[in-house]
């Protein structure tokens, strides 16, 4: 009966590290329980879980996510800009981003003018800070890639409530700075038909 006693080790340090093995019902010092646990009885109480379907599911999920993965990452949209939505749209391209919200104009996060100032003036105008920033970006692009023709594309992220006067001023300034192909960023609506 000694081997059924959980404290049967001769070695005083043996309790520190135990050999791996079955532990279930080990504290019960009864032979029929041990027989049952070790499988000498009827059916083994160890139930095997079939992992094949689980692994299949995981692999399918991984493949789906890898196929829809975009390495270019998320395009930063100014958190103060609420974009309008449209159906007939094109895919976004890599180009300088001009964000226009109710208060300010930003080029790739750098301040480039005030929306309020344009509204208060009440007429179409060239925005000097925006012009200089875009012009610098254009010159930098030309220095980096001297052999390629400059595409002249920039993307405007304009808040849906910004008045047309501001949009036209930014549009015209971008064109003056060498970006005649202006795109408006919009949310994509599903096709109605």
């Amino acid at each position, binding site marked *: 009966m000694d081997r059924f006693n959980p404290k049967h080790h001769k070695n005083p340090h043996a309790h520190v590290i135990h050999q791996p093995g079955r532990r279930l019902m080990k504290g019960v010092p009864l032979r029929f329980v041990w027989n049952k646990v070790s499988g000498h009885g009827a059916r083994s109480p160890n139930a095997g879980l079939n*992992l094949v379907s689980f692994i299949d599911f995981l692999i399918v999920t991984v493949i789906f996510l890898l196929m829809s993965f975009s390495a270019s*990452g998320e395009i930063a949209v100014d958190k103060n800009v609420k974009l309008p939505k449209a159906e*007939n749209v094109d895919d976004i391209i890599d180009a300088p981003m001009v964000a226009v919200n109710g208060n300010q104009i930003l080029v790739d996060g750098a301040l480039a003018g005030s929306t309020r100032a344009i509204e208060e003036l009440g007429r179409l105008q060239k925005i000097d800070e925006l012009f200089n920033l875009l012009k610098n970006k254009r010159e930098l692009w030309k220095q980096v890639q001297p052999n390629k023709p400059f595409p002249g594309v920039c993307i405007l992220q*304009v808040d849906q409530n910004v008045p047309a006067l501001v949009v036209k001023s930014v549009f015209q300034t*971008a064109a003056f700075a060498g970006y005649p192909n*202006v795109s408006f960023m919009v*949310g*994509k609506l599903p096709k109605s038909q």
Partner: protein
Amino acid sequence: MGGVDVGDGGGKKRATNSDINMIPFIDLLMVTIAFLLITAVWVTNSRMNADAQVPGPPDPNKELTPQTPEKVLNLHIGESEFGLVWKQGATVVNEVKVNKSPVELGDASSKIIRYPELAKRIEEEWKTHGGHRDPSDKKVDQAILHTDNRTPFKEIVAVLDALYSPKREMRLPDGNKQVPVFNMTFSVR
């Protein structure tokens, strides 16, 4: 667990059935899924083209020949109606008015305006007066948007959506593609 069963070895030899530990494999799959889910881009934004119509510098080697101006669609956004005016130079070729009948989608907080009637009328107008229809023609017809300075941008986008709704086939190096029949620019006065 996954394993390889090559049958009973027989005799007193070591068992030839070996189990592959699947736990690290499942862990790897779980971590990959977690990474892909975290880095996934769920919000998809798109763009609408416009063209500022800036003329390039004249080519000194090319002889200037007088060209007849192309027909251009002038789209006027009014208070209660839209004006579709085809002009060739300063000559008005055709003029129609379309009532402003907006279709509102979404709830009050995120209301979206659409002009399906305008889109239909623009398509009819292009079929009658449009100049660039052949698939091999790389140019598209030009539309000039005339709007009041106070018009909110969401209304401009709704009109642009209607303007870009008619499409035609264009032959491109990477195959035929459906492209909008118009390119838009603002009237700046």
